[in-house]
């Protein structure tokens, strides 16, 4: 039975891959919606890692943290999407490369 | 307590001057002059007691209580920092010089400053307070504090009331001194840390640190920190480049204070700290330092010769003169050190006077460019004669203080290194060259064609002449009867020399 159980490092590999994809998305995407999605991917990857770690130790803490991550993600998305609305209105574009008034 | 009172008088005087601006235009100047004079009189009353000379001769490095004044109050015991002021002969001379030249500076700025007089006089007084602190603080932390704090009002003086390029000059002045000061701070803290390793607690007291044993490399490194700070302030070659700009751009009073007093803090620091705290490193470093001194003398003199700006020329002459001081300090014998002391005082007066003249010229001609001057003697004989007097004094003519300084330095130096003395004596020649060209370009020669007889060039007035006479008198007195000054400084210098000897033996 033991060898049939999902190895921890494999789960972590998956979450790492997800995390990196999210980060890559942040680096290449210009549309703010996609950027926020990338953030969700990254948060989700961390959540996966936490769940895996919690499961590894057989503790509920991982899931508790997952719950907190959920609320964090929700709050962040709420504010983020609020900002998206503003941005669309102010800049008439969701392309973040256009938002570079401040520099230097 | 006397020193603290002095500093407080000046600080409060500054505040009063600042506030009195609203009363009348005159009020700040009068306040400033009065507070300086009050401090001076106070100092004299406290010091000149029948036995002061004997007290001075008893002050010994091992026992601060034997000094003329000594005050030690706990300040930041966590770091062994205390408010420690002490006054011995050397400090006394420097403090007196500061106050006298301070009065001169205020007098020099009497009509010069057209705006924000109150703040100006306040800054002058605060600078003086800072300088007095530097000359009397014997806690390294406190010393550094005054060292930095005196920069700020000076920065204001240059940056607010300076001439066309003041921003650059003020910045350069501040960054040079501050950056080098940081090195000194690191060095002094390192000393305290070493002290702690030996004795279990921090101490910044000069008396604790003077005989601190330390590794040779450490000693050398720490000494360079102090050395750079002081040489920048002195200023010695190759750290002098802030000086011409600062001098040139500063208002008259600023130049007077800079040249007369602030530069001396560098020399004082070398004598008081840079050598005695690190005897063997200083001993090994002396040839380098002397070479820098010689370079400074020649370089300053040659560069001065090429200048077309009156103040810049005088500024470079200071560089040259300070080269002598550097030489004298690192010759480190009684002759040379006495020479340094006299040279410091004499240079204070002569350069201050020359800057006053430069300032008066600028006030009247609205230029410092000597190509626009020429033949001014015709219009302003009194100013011309004063200029002549101080130029001659500063080129080291016997009978004036500067000569005594230079000759003693050379005498002392020759005993240490004859070649250095030979090289340094070239400065006597180059000094004559730039000094005389200064006279020639400004006061001698054909009066400028476009400056008709009708030009409004009033000569020195009574107040200005009075200041001039004071400084002339001081220089002559210093030149023909320097002995009282040397008596005052003697014990300190011998004590320091002995301390270094002791350190070398160890």
């Amino acid at each position, binding site marked *: 039975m033991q060898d049939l159980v999902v190895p921890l490092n494999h789960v972590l590999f998956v979450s790492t891959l997800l995390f990196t994809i999210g980060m890559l998305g942040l680096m290449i995407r210009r549309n703010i919606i996609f950027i926020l999605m990338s953030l969700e991917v*990254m948060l989700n990857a961390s959540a996966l890692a936490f769940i895996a770690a919690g499961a590894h130790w057989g503790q509920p803490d991982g899931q508790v943290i997952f719950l907190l991550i959920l609320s964090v993600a929700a709050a962040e998305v709420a504010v983020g999407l609020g900002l998206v609305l503003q941005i669309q209105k102010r800049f008439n574009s969701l392309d973040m490369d256009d938002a570079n008034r*401040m520099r230097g | 307590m006397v020193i603290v009172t002095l500093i407080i008088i000046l600080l409060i005087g500054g505040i009063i001057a600042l506030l009195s601006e609203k009363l009348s235009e005159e009020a700040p100047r009068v306040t400033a002059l009065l507070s300086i004079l009050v401090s001076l009189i106070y100092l004299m009353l406290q010091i000149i007691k029948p036995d002061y000379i004997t007290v001075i001769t008893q002050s010994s490095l091992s026992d601060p209580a034997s000094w003329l004044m000594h005050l030690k109050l706990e300040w930041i015991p*966590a770091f062994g920092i205390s408010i420690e002021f002490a006054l011995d002969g050397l400090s006394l001379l420097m403090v007196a010089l500061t106050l006298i030249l301070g009065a001169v500076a205020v007098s020099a700025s009497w009509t010069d400053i057209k705006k924000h007089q109150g703040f100006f006089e306040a800054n002058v007084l605060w600078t003086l307070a800072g300088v007095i602190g530097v000359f009397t603080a014997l806690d390294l932390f406190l010393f550094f504090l005054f060292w930095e704090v005196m920069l700020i009002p000076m920065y204001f003086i240059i940056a607010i009331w300076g001439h066309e390029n003041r921003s650059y000059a003020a910045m350069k002045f501040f960054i040079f001194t501050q950056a080098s000061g940081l090195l000194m701070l690191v060095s002094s803290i390192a000393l305290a840390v070493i002290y702690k390793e030996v004795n279990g607690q921090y101490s910044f007291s000069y008396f604790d640190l003077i005989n601190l044993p330390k590794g040779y490399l450490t000693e050398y490194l720490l000494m360079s920190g102090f050395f750079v700070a002081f040489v920048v302030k002195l200023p010695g070659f190759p750290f002098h480049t802030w000086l011409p700009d600062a001098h040139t751009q500063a208002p008259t009073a600023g130049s007077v204070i800079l040249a007369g007093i602030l530069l001396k803090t560098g020399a004082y620091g070398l004598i008081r700290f840079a050598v005695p705290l690190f005897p063997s490193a200083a001993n090994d470093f002396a040839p380098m330092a002397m070479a820098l001194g010689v370079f400074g003398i020649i370089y300053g003199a040659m560069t001065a010769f090429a200048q077309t700006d009156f103040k810049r020329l005088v500024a470079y002459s200071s560089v040259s003169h300070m080269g002598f001081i550097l030489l004298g300090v690192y010759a480190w014998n009684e002759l040379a050190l006495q020479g340094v002391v006299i040279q410091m005082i004499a240079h204070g007066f002569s350069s201050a006077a020359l800057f006053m003249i430069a300032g008066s010229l600028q006030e009247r001609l609205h230029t410092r460019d000597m190509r626009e001057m020429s033949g001014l003697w015709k219009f302003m004989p009194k100013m011309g004669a004063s200029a002549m007097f101080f130029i001659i004094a500063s080129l080291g003519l016997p009978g004036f203080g500067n000569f005594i300084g230079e000759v003693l330095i050379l005498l002392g130096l020759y005993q240490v290194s004859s070649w250095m003395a030979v090289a340094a004596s070239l400065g006597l020649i180059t000094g004559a060259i730039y000094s005389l060209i200064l006279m020639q370009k400004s006061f001698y020669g054909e009066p400028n064609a476009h400056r008709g007889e009708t030009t409004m060039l009033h000569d020195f007035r009574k107040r200005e002449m009075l200041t001039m006479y004071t400084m002339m008198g001081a220089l002559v007195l210093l030149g023909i009867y320097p002995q009282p000054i040397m008596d005052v400084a003697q014990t300190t210098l011998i004590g320091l020399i002995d301390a270094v000897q002791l350190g070398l033996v160890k």
Partner: protein
Amino acid sequence: MKVIDFYSLAPILGLSVTIIVVMIQASIKRNHKLAWWISFLGVTATLWSTHLATSYPQQVTPLFLINPSGLWFSSLITVGALVTLILSTDDENTGFKVTEEYYLLLLLSTLGAVVLILASHMASLLLGMELLGISLYAMIAFPEKDPNPLEGAIKYLVLSAAASAMLLFGFALIYAATGDLSYTGIGAKLSSAGIKNPLLVVAGTSMLLASIGFKLSLAPFHMWTPDVYQGAPTPVTNFLATVSKGAMLVALSRFTIDGQLHQYPTFMLCLSVLAIISMLVGNWLALRQQQIKRLLAYSSIAHFGYLLVALVALRQLQESDEIFYSSLEAINFYLTAYIITSLAAFTVIANIGGENDPDMRSFAGLFWRKPVQASTLTVAMLSFAGIPLTAGFLGKFYLITLALNTNLWLLLITLVFGSAIAIYYYLRVIYTMLITSSSDNNYEVPLISSPMWRDALAIILMISVILLGTWPQPFIDFMRHL
């Protein structure tokens, strides 16, 4: 939970209650003056409540460890919030329309900062950080007319959320390796040899450092700082610079110490590298910056670089070591000095209302127009630059002493070099204020007449900076009792 726990959690509870009261008030009748007063009283009460805790160090649930230094920083942070609150009074100097939501967000954010400081567990750390951050995003974007706040807010939100994700991932890895989520638990596990996957911890701490480095705007995670500082309304910038960063640094140091990370050379090496890069990059970036808030942003990069020196000094020290305590003392002192100085600087900038000038023109000749404000800003700049008689100097003094004591030569050299070039830009600000009207007439801009209390606030902060710089011994004694 026992009663005594409530006393210990008084700051958190105080803020929470205030938040609720403001919420209720806003829902009954909107009145931002009233909301301001409630917030003011609430924050003041919180400040007072920090001394209610009676016995410490005290663990309140696994999430919080109440200890004296935490309470001290809580109160300091609360002071920062208080100043922000005062600066956010709705008048023409503030520059944007303040509503009840703003106070609510400010209180929530402060709550987040306090939670962050007192946290002793990853959950509370996460919550504190996010509470602080999410409220801040909205606060930054609060002004309605300007596009700059919006741009700043979205940049901060995205990058900061990415950093949070990084932090979480790092924690997950550490958790995977140790099986514990509280600082002390992690520390205990780390110092015992029985870690199964040490490399996980390495990865985890590095991610953690990257994330916190981002929040502290350490180079090379610093890029957001100037844009956000500039974009945010000045009171919010003030809050960000003092409360947010201060709390974050306290959290970092608490985690480092409780988690025994200072025993761990790789972590310390990473910290040193960040410190060095930050000191250099921050100062270089600030060198010729013309926009005052960007300038302060860059300078803050350098300052947190300096602060890390004290943290690095902890390396391989046992808690019994004397230097260990002086290192903590240095962090406390420098951070306190930095926060107070920053408060002073931003107060003046907010009071003058010229924060959006591209070239500091509102500050030209300030000395002659508003001497009190100008003096305060001058003192603040000198304190930043580390000139004696100011708090900043003693902070630097602490750091240099520490670096000498612990032989951190490279850091020391960088620190000295950084301080030396930093003088240039601080002096430039001072010089701008000294410009006299006659020479540069085009610099004259009409000034908003500010009420007396703005001057009073500036004076109080200036005096604090100077007092801390001239008479530090009582404060040092106080810190030693922490």
